[in-house]
């Protein structure tokens, strides 16, 4: 008997008991669907993180000066910030660091005539444009000198332009950021949405001293966040070590003392995020595993029932000369088809579930053909593993007794 004939027989037997077959497949369906959803959200999160890393640049380090403890003493936020000298020292002596800029951020209302808009205002240095790879639609960037003298100039992101200028060209116009008047000297080329759904163009950039001393009335030498670009991806670790050493020295932290700042690179952040996603989907993965096991046992059970029901048929097949391996194949293929059908339905349900999740919960999902094929392969494997015993039992029946079975 050929494989094809075995498949034909299997489909016939399965379709004969539609409801029973569907119920039997339920375990595999749920298991595979849960697996697909788990994998889709995990892969989605990973892809999103990778995209963010790529869009922000792989060679970027972030230094957060707002660490909340120094030694064993827990400090309030911002109690021990980085200073401008720290930053200058880093640029001077960390060989792996190429460029550096503060990236202090504050949300603020920006006003043009009768229109206003709430956005994020960043105080940065001229190097920032190169670090984050911004380009212009119109106007110009500000330069080092304007930074030094805290010029009241700013650049607007695309979203801000749309909201307070519409189709008008803002270059040369004066807007108010909080209470401070500020000349728009350029507009930034749109970067679009990040994969997190964040609008990357909803921002205003101005020189850090302007931001600090004129807009916020704070000490312009205090910096909270730094962004650094590293010479090459291979130097990330070196840069991280150099920056840590310099800031520790500047802050006079003794050996063994705890850092009062954090140096983070994006791939570390990505790893931390992946871990969170994994924890979130871990439960679902356990459901998938248990459900697949229960599904397999269900298939074994129904196949044993089927063998018992069809004892006479098996007896006849053996009596007229079917080889044991042919009978074994018939029942094994039936179990595999049953399980694989469950797997295919499960894939469909899983894809539907993942799409629903993406739509309603706004989770990033990514369904790859590899995992779809693997899920079907797993269900085939379950069919083989749990179908073998019943098939073996059918093949080893004694035809004389099987024919007499009532």
């Amino acid at each position: 008997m050929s494989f094809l004939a075995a498949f034909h027989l299997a489909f016939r037997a399965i379709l004969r008991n539609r409801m029973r077959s569907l119920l039997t497949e339920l375990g595999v369906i749920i298991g595979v669907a849960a697996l697909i959803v788990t994998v889709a959200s995990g892969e989605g999160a990973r892809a999103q993180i990778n995209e963010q890393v790529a869009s922000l640049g792989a060679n970027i380090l972030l230094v957060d000066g707002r660490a909340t403890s120094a030694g064993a003493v827990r400090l309030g936020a911002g109690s021990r910030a980085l200073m401008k000298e720290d930053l200058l020292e880093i640029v001077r002596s960390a060989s792996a660091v190429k460029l550096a800029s503060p990236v202090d951020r504050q949300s603020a209302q920006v006003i043009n005539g009768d229109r206003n808009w709430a956005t994020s205002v960043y105080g940065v240095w001229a190097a920032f444009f190169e670090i984050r790879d911004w380009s212009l639609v119109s106007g110009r960037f500000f330069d080092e000198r304007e930074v030094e003298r805290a010029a009241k100039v700013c650049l607007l992101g695309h979203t801000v332009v749309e909201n307070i200028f519409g189709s008008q060209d803002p270059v040369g116009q004066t807007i108010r950021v909080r209470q401070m008047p500020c000349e728009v000297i350029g507009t930034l080329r749109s970067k679009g949405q990040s994969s997190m759904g964040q609008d990357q163009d909803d921002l205003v950039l101005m020189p850090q001293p302007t931001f600090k001393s004129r807009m916020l009335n704070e000490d312009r030498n205090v910096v909270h966040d730094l962004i650094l670009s590293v010479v090459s991806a291979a130097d990330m670790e070196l840069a991280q070590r150099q920056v840590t050493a310099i800031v520790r020295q500047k802050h006079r932290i003794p050996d063994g003392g705890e850092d009062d700042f954090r140096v983070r690179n994006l791939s570390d952040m990505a790893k931390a995020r992946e871990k969170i996603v994994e924890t979130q989907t871990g439960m679902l993965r356990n459901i998938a595993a248990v459900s697949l096991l229960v599904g397999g046992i269900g298939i074994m059970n129904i196949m044993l029932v089927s063998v018992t029901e069809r004892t006479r048929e098996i007896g006849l097949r053996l009596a007229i000369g079917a080889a044991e391996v042919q009978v074994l194949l018939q029942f094994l293929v039936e179990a595999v088809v049953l399980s694989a059908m469950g797997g295919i339905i499960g894939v469909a349900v899983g894809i539907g579930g993942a799409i629903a999740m993406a739509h309603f919960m706004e989770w990033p999902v990514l369904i790859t053909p590899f995992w779809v094929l693997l899920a079907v392969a797993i269900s085939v494997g379950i069919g083989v593993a749990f179908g073998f015993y019943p098939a073996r039992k059918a093949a080893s029946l004694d035809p004389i007794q099987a024919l007499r079975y009532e």
Partner: protein
Amino acid sequence: MVTEPVVSLAGIARTYGRGDNVVHALRGVDLEIAEGEMVAVMGPSGSGKSTLMNILGCLDRPSAGRYLLDGQDVAGVSKRDLSAIRLRRLGFIFQSFHLLPRTSALENVELPLVYAGVPKQERRARAMAALNRVGLEDRQHHTSAELSGGQQQRVAIARALVQRPRLVLADEPTGNLDSRTSLEVMATLQTLNRDGATLVIVTHESDIAKYASRVLVCRDGRIRKDERRTPQDAAADLAVWHDEEQDPAEEEERIT
């Protein structure tokens, strides 16, 4: 006939169990069946006739003795080889037909050919030819539920014949049929026998045994009586039986 016998049994014994619980189902059977014979095996239950059939049909192996099927010793071959022998050289007809449910007559007849790996087109043609021989060519698409008992048994006969076996074994082929359909089935078997098939039929009905050219009677695991009859004897017996059973005029058509 000087040709080699289809079946040659010598000192066949079959015991079940061991120690004190040993049951001797067959206690030394010697038997030769020539090509073209139609043999009826009779005997009370427990006489060993079923065991004899199982051994003849290569479904069971003797505990002792020699079994030559077509000159080949099959007493000691493996289970796997026995399957192949059953598939290619033996045909089976059962009391309860054993057709596959919800399966057409044609597909039922094709079943041995499927296991023999015969390609589909040839399978179809040979199965149709076999259905033709039992007069059911117009019922090829009917499932067993749509066939009468007699028709079902004739489908089973076609299935037994489709591989052109050397020996056809029928176990109480009319046991589940009323006497009228029994006649149909026996007539079919007799026709096949005249066309050259070698048949062994187990029955407990002496009326059925009358169709045979030779009657064996089993008792206590041995063959007690081995009676050969000429075709004339058989015809005479049948005539009497038919007179008793039903209107001969009607039956005349049926047998021929």
